């Protein structure tokens, strides 16, 4: 996780429940699945906290034509990856917001506006934000997302943002909260807990 926030894109579509960002590909700036990001809203009075749940690269006929060849020169591959105006799109689920009073784990009052900058969340902020677990409910309630995998990865990344000696305790607390939320669905709970344990 980068030490300081890094701009990872700009908002192209947004709503209260989340936003979509786009950028030109750069491996350094590529957000990872399950990571937290922030984007300014309400004219700078708040920042929406998003959890990246999908990263996609739009194709086009030219890319398809080149992809179908047996051999593509390295210069053209580099051109396609670094220069062409085909943005990487990533989608983030709104899991909270930040204002003068600190982090809140509820839907934001307003979404960010088009072309607002999106930044990765600094480790310190990620630790602050995930010190409460209300956002887990927001993830579990999100329709049509790979919820279990997203939740597992988000918790694992949040653990990594903490000092090594605190990680296990964090994951145990998170596991307890997940167990409380999924008490009626033991199969899913078992899968998530197994995922947390395996990736510790």
């Amino acid at each position: 996780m980068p030490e300081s926030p890094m701009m990872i894109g700009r908002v192209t579509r947004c709503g209260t429940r989340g936003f979509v960002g786009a950028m030109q590909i750069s491996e350094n700036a590529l957000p990872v699945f399950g990571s937290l990001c922030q984007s300014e809203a309400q004219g700078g009075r708040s920042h929406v906290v998003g959890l990246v749940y999908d990263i996609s690269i739009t194709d086009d006929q030219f890319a398809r034509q080149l992809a179908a060849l047996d051999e593509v020169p390295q210069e053209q591959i580099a051109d396609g990856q670094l220069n062409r105006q085909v943005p990487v799109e990533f989608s983030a689920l709104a899991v909270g917001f930040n204002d003068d009073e600190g982090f809140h784990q509820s839907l934001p009052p307003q979404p960010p506006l088009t072309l607002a900058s999106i930044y990765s969340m600094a480790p310190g902020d990620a630790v602050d934000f995930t010190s409460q677990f209300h956002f887990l409910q927001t993830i579990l309630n999100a329709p049509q997302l790979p919820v279990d995998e997203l939740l597992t990865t988000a918790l694992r990344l949040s653990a990594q943002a903490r000092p090594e000696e605190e990680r296990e305790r964090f994951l145990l607390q998170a596991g307890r909260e997940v167990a409380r939320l999924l008490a009626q669905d033991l199969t899913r709970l078992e899968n998530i807990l197994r995922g947390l344990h395996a990736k510790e």
Partner: protein
Amino acid sequence: MGIHLPSLLPQMQEFGQALYERSLELSATIPKAIKALHLTAELDHSDLQSKIKKAGNRWTGAIPTGETLNLTFPSPATPQSLHVIGADGSQIYPDRHAAAFYYLINIGSIVVSHGSGEAPTIQQESKLFYKLEDLYDEAGHPVQNAYVNLRRDVAEMKTLAERAESLASEQTLAILDNSLLLWMALQTGGSTSRETDRTLQQYLKLLDRLHSSEAGLAGFIDRPRSVSVLALIHLAGLPNDQITQDTVRLTPFRGLTDRAIFTKLLPPGHRSALFISASPLNRDFRTAGHEVHFFYLKTDADDTVVRVEIPTWVAQDPELLNRVHAGILQDCQTTGGFPYTLVRAHELAVIPPQERAAFEEMLQRTLLGHGLRPTQSQKALTKQLTGQRKQHRL
């Protein structure tokens, strides 16, 4: 409300039938044209030159060079490393119905360094023309679209020259997605002729710069409709005493193109002999040391035949001529017979509708910011209103 398709149906049937019949006729004519080319190749060079002289200044056929007319030339060895520069342009034409009178030229360019493995360098340059001297000629007439095209062509060549100069000590090939001859200079018409001449001189100076940079230079014309070699073989078949303005025009190859015969003649990767363009415009180019030569080239195995135009200093330098020939083939390998650099230069230059809309919105905000009320003409407004209506389709 758009095209009346029912009334076009019978016309479409006739159109299809006519195209079919014409293709049969042309297929029968191609072997005759090829035979005539072989016969022309056997003619004495001085006899051919005297026929061309007799055809006069208005004849626009292909003038032979020292190369045998019906020979084909295989691809030279591909250079180990080669920088290929591509440039292309697009524009927003001046529109008297728009909120403001202006035009815009957008140039995209790319340098692909073959053999380097590195990402190409790309460049986009947009320039807005809004000053009185940009928009009106000396007689006060507003600029025409043809003049904007002329300025765009010059801007494309300027980009090629600048990028070639930055690679002056390297093996470089600059490709223009257009004819090297500045055809628009012939089409801009009377009132702007002095400005057109100035622009032509600027263009020729840019060719000087490219020559000094020691880059190879080529104008790439995909799917050419040119008939200049056919005009030559028709002229060659005329007895000297029958060469008149009328007889040189009465060609038996009407409807056929040079491309059709070279598609049959050229193996993949081969080029035709070199010719010189007899266009009147080429006289200015010859005077400036850039007389335009051309050859046909089969760029892939799928019968893609293109016309490649080169200045005289490339035509007369075997190393540069080979660089153009092999470099274009190398650049066409992954893109179906059309150069990769030009595909990308076009992509960088083109102004998509959504970007144009964003630009016009920016312009309107700017006008408002200066206390000006941006208004479109009533005609433009009503076109927008009626254009939004959707027709129900059955």
